[in-house]
């Protein structure tokens, strides 16, 4: 195999040093009953050239975003990823390093994570961020675990207008945490603070997505206040690209801010890998799950960075750890850092405003009935298409346009509703084309 370096001569010499006469002898400790006697039933080994041909074949059996003008979002978005982000991720010293357990050889990754944590704190208005969670769904479960231990309460509240992916994952984790999950229905596309307040009574936390799954701006400050009234931790699930335009959750009373990092610097990649971010107020720092990088100095007084507060973690605290996570999504969060640094504060605002402007333009251009007509939306909106939305999708695809997501898949009674996402990569021409296909 081309990935192996040992020659027959090497093998001979090594076996001799070890003092055995064959490689089989090295496996002497394996009971006969558990030895695998036949050859693995796998397709024959491929050369790099064959590998390339086969995978190019598989890739060609998919229709990437570019294959159609795509307005599909619903949680994963076709935002522009700058070349510099991809280039940085291919630097071997970063790409092929493990978690930075040995700080003196890992200052590059450690400083990058510290810079990432700073960026997330700045975006969310929080005091502390971890080095990343798996994705935008599992960080919601993480938030519940923090809240459970912080409040000792046995229930969590999630708004129905929060991404179905997120709600499903929370429900999967909750029993193990000893938590019950309560959903608060949306009213005309947004959440009613009073309903949330009522539901949040003796809840550990209340999670709401903002902008929510329908693209609608929630009355976020009121929702946070309502949760706080019930002494449940207010948790906002936010789109990082909205935070140049929308207020930082930390500024309207949230205890924890979480979100899916993909829109900021990651390719959609059929759903992963991406990064989930999780930031909180200082009081929760010792309950944070996962890696956290802290600043310190070396023996000579030089500034340096290390993994810190490790007594929270599984490798020290074991069954009392704040989480079991070890491997996280550092490389993807690095892409996030590069992307956010590439944009800067003004660029972040520009992206948000461009998406909003294009989405608003699309609403008008389409002229289809808006499902939540008197709500403000960010980059996504729901329209009625007068017949089953999945049929509309299929027909539009035949014309080279992916018009969006059929909401009926997650929300009963919305079979005729299409969720249309408009990123800065869509042009007014694209929108005209969408209008032709949907209405023309």
């Amino acid at each position, binding site marked *: 195999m081309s990935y192996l370096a*040992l020659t027959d001569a090497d093998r001979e010499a090594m076996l001799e040093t070890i003092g055995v006469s064959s490689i089989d002898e090295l496996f002497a400790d394996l009971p006969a009953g558990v030895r695998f006697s036949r050859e*693995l039933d796998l397709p024959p080994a491929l050369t790099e050239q064959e590998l390339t041909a086969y995978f190019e074949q598989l890739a060609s059996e998919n229709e990437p975003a570019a294959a159609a003008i795509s307005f599909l979002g619903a949680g994963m978005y076709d935002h522009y990823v700058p070349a510099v982000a991809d280039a940085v991720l291919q630097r071997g010293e970063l790409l092929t390093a493990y978690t930075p357990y*040995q700080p003196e050889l890992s200052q590059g990754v450690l400083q990058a994570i510290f810079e990432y944590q700073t960026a997330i704190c700045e975006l969310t208005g929080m005091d502390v961020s971890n080095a990343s969670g798996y994705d935008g769904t599992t960080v919601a479960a993480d938030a519940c675990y923090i809240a459970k231990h912080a409040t000792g309460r046995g229930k969590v509240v999630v708004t129905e207008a929060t991404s179905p992916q997120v709600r499903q994952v929370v429900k999967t984790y909750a029993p193990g945490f000893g938590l019950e999950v309560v959903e608060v229905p949306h009213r005309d596309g947004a959440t009613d603070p009073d309903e949330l307040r009522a539901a949040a009574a003796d809840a550990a936390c209340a999670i709401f997505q903002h902008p929510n799954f329908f693209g609608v701006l929630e009355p976020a400050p009121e929702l946070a206040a309502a949760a706080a009234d019930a002494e449940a931790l207010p948790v906002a699930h936010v789109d990082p690209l909205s935070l140049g335009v*929308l207020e930082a959750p930390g500024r309207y009373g949230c205890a924890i801010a979480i979100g899916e990092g993909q829109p900021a610097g990651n390719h959609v990649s059929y759903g992963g*890998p991406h990064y989930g971010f999780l930031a909180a107020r200082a009081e929760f720092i010792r309950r944070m799950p996962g890696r956290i990088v802290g600043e310190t100095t070396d023996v000579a007084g030089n500034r340096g960075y290390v993994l810190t507060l490790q007594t929270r973690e599984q490798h020290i605290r074991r069954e009392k750890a704040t989480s079991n996570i070890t491997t996280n999504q550092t490389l993807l969060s690095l892409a996030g850092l*590069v992307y956010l640094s590439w944009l800067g504060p003004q660029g972040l605002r520009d992206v948000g405003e461009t998406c909003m402007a294009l989405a608003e333009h699309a609403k008008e251009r389409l002229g289809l009935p808006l499902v939540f007509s008197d709500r403000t939306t960010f980059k996504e909106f729901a329209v009625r298409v007068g017949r089953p939305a999945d049929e509309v999708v299929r027909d539009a695809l035949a014309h080279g346009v992916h018009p969006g997501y059929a909401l009926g898949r997650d929300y009963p009674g919305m079979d005729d509703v299409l969720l249309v996402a408009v990123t800065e990569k869509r042009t007014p021409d694209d929108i005209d084309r969408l209008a032709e296909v949907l209405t023309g």
Partner: protein
Amino acid sequence: MKLIYEKSHPGRRAGRLLSLGLPVPGVPAELCRTEPPRLPEIAEPDLLRHFTELSTRNFGVDTGFYPLGSCTMKHNPRVNERLAALPGFRDLHPLEDEDRAQGALRLCIELQEALAEVTGLAAVSLQPAAGSQGELTGLMLMHAYFADRGEDERRRKIVIPDTAHGTNPASVTMTGYELTHVQTDARGNIDVDDLRAKVDEETAGLMLTNPSTLGLFDENIEEIERIFHGAGALMYYDGANLNAVCGISRPGDMGFDIVHINLHKTFSQPHGGGGPGGGPIAVAERLEPFLPAPAIVRDGERYRLDFDRPKTIGKVRGYYGPFGVFVRSYAFIRAYGPQLREMSEAAVLNANYLLARLRDAYDLPFDRLCMHEFVLSARGLKREHGATAFDVAKRLMDYGFHPPTVYFPLIVPEALMIEPTETEAKETLDAFADAMLAIAAEAAERPEELHEAPHRTPVGRLDEVKAAKRAIVRYHFEEHPDLAAEPAAAGVESA
């Protein structure tokens, strides 16, 4: 070097957007951003230099030998990066119509089938994002399985050996189970007598890494299987060490019911400085109905997502798992095919060779042939010269090597856990062995060399206690403290 925020200048920027001249809709005042986030303001040339310089202050497998035990730091073929970046994969939306994602679904299914064959189990879910999440998922499956049989109330206990990785007990707690600890015997196997006494009808299952974190294959595995299955309990295989046994011994054949696979270890997904990873789980027939939804299934010539899974535990992660990782790991598997066995054989040969070269200079807690890794102890060096495993690790850096894993597993004092992997050449192993021997000699002659190590790294030994005490976990701009001005903390805590 400076933080990127310290290089920031108002008005600079790299990325620009076209201004379309379209009206920007108003946002209700109470929702408007009041103060912009203080993201870096930097032009592209300096942006690129910043991250290039950061990379030069980091050590990866591309840099050199990285024998970090339990982490399987093997070569990451660049062709896998090229393949994962194909637009047909990279730009495919997870909610894309199934007919338009047949290649991706097919790749997932072929990977599932390959993993089922390697583990010797019936069904696979690719959804878990990493090994730790595989563990959570596996334990949730135990709940679901026993609940389905009306035994979940009763079976509250999970047995874990004292050699287990910290994620195992943490996962147990996070899934609402209780821990039962079992000891290790004199040969490094699970103490079977201790085990018998602790397994009963309240036991839900076992979590075991085999070969263990000592790098030893448990010689009693068949007896262990009888004990657990005899008690109606399940067996979970922590696949972190699968690199030792591909094509040689299969967890399913050992009797395990649930296995997680760390794609970023055995199957070469680059670890990226902390992730991404992939933690698919493979299970026995009887557990298949409970796997996360959606399942990815073949349907004649077609491939589809099956959401109709009445007994599923639900979703553990968004969509179908870290697809980009699947591309890399499946490409890696296809490059070996049935010769995956050669991969594991080379990994075990490399480990035993290093062990043979080092066994006299360091303490060997369990005197056996090892599998793909082995654990030495610096106990002797510490007793005689005051040189700890931590010192040895730091000193190795001066010789140009990444240190092994230290102070794990916990049952071995001053542990040095060494995993060379299969992709290293003999001369690399020899150079490392020579360094380890030289360091053992230095410990006797000039131990201060070790205490003060490393000497040739971008920064010297770092004050981890100060970091934890001050908890400066973000840049504070104008208010950022000057830690250099503050006294060093109590002394350096071990990693």
